[in-house]
């Protein structure tokens, strides 16, 4: 699910970047640091949409040669966070005997064979896939599936999810072979 929120962060800036371009430097450093990162609480930061406010810079106590000034910045950003129970559309990247891996943006999802309906069987070969007995539904690399998230885990740069398609209205959305 996507969220658009205001978050705050303390940015540390070296005095060499002070001057006319202070705010620009601050903003570009913020973007570099924050966009593409993940946290357990907010999920994946997709993009920063605007800066709400930049507080007064704080110079640390005592003097040291590597003094960095701290600026508290409030910024608006677009967040993406999968939730347990959420239905997502994902793009299949790898199919093997144990299940298949799919991705939805920055999120990597694994659907185990045990959570794929029994009616679908694994077919090995050049393009390994899961097919129903009558061949009507096929899950293979580069097809879209609708799946339900049953667990999520976040680390510094990626979100791992475990999903299932063993429910109503889930599985293949469109088959690239049929569409062609």
């Amino acid at each position, binding site marked *: 699910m996507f*969220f658009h929120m205001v978050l705050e962060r303390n940015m540390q800036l070296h005095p060499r970047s002070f001057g006319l371009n202070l705010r620009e430097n601050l903003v570009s450093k913020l973007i570099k640091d924050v966009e593409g990162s993940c946290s357990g*609480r907010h999920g994946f930061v997709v993009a920063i949409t605007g800066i709400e406010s930049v507080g007064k810079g704080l110079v640390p106590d005592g003097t040291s040669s590597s003094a960095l000034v701290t600026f508290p910045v409030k910024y608006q950003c677009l967040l993406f966070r999968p*939730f347990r*129970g959420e239905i997502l559309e994902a793009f299949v990247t790898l199919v093997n005997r144990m299940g298949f891996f799919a991705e939805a943006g920055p999120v990597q999802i694994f659907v185990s064979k045990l*959570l794929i309906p029994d009616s679908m069987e694994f077919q090995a070969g050049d393009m390994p896939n899961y097919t129903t007995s009558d061949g009507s539904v096929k899950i293979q690399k580069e097809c879209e599936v609708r799946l339900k998230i049953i667990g999520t*885990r*976040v680390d510094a740069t990626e979100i*791992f999810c475990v999903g299932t398609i063993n429910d109503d209205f889930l599985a293949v959305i469109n088959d690239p072979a049929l569409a062609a």
Partner: protein
Amino acid sequence: MSVASDSSPVHSSSSDDLAAFLETELDSDSDSDSSSESFPIEAAEVAVVDVSSNHRLKRQKLEHPEDETENVASVTFSEEISEASSSKSPCEHPGTFGNMCFVCGQKVEVTGVSFGYIHKGFKLQQDEVTRLRDIDMKALQSQRKLCLVLDLDHTLLNTTVLRDLRPEEEYLKSHTHSLQDVSGGDIFMLEFMHMMTKLRPFVHSFLKEASKMFVLYIYTMGDRPYARQMAKLLDPKGEYFGERIISRDDGTVKHQKSLDVVLGQEKAVLILDDTENAWPGHRDNLIVIERYHFFASSCKQFDHRFQSLSQLKSDESEPEGVLSAVLKVLKQTHSLFFQDGGEDLSSRDVRSLLKQVRKEILEGCKVVFSRVFPTKTQAEDHPLWRVAEGLGATCATEVDASVTHVVAMDVGTEKVRWAIREKKFVVHRGWIDAANYLWKKQPEEKFGLEQLKKQGADDLTVEK
């Protein structure tokens, strides 16, 4: 921010904040009025699934916000859903993806074997691995295939770092093939990795033939990017190896290779590697191959004083080279395994079949060793004795009429003089080593003792 380090008491206060924050954000946002109706119900369903599953497990901080936003209207939902989920049998957690069980989604203790080469963060429990191996065995039998694990360096190719190129090897830079179309090429310049790679002669035909009989794996002591790059050179279409590229980052024990990350049953896996010591637990599955030294730096690495193939401006022969000999052995073992005999396939073991093939090499030879082993040691325990026996020869300590070969390092011994008198073959130990590496009995004339003086005792230069 690590989710796992949070403890329960801290949960409620901070998640309260987030919950309140989320609510205010959603309420204040004018577009989301329609979505705010659906949100509490969705959240309640999610909360209920959590509540009905194990409380005692340390739950992620993520799950708590849903608890708090539960609405009165959704109480009836909760009863129905909790009944449904409690009827499921407890999950066995066959494996984890990023420390969550991939069947129930709960956070579990991470144990089991890591299969990083399939996908990052993917782990399987030992029982599940065994179950998968059984399924794999059946699938392979129906396709009439076994498993073959291949090493890269000095086995299928030879790589050198660009800086270690000797001046006499500079001519190679103009002979490199383009990386855009690797088929048919065998020497490649990889500027971005500062390396140059030479594929062993016959390797393309070898892979093509082997892939018909075996499911191929790469297992190298290089790192993952190196392994993937080499796989692209050997197998541009990805048809031979697929995802089965195991690098040192995927191994479980440092500096050692093991079949624990290979999803094939041990009795159906053969290994092709130049280093015996890399596979301490699987010597019986291993076919040791002669090292491919194309670049000078490779020879130097192993303290060899002879010139490398690039310095000699030559290469191994394709039809009579090492890979071609090994391919014949693989074909032989494969046909023995799938032979229509009395017993069924599940009781056949490729390791015993390999021993069988090996014993045919020096069958019928009786070997006596002269001044090869130090006098204080037990002759039967010496590795060379063992190798000779493994090749099917009978070994003895004293000469008699049935002896066919005398292996010596020196011309002047009594046994050698006896052999010359009785017109028996006199060879140096290289004859046994050559038979071991080339899987074929070599002509004795090439290993006579006069040859020994010419080549020098250290080298194992096998005549091709």
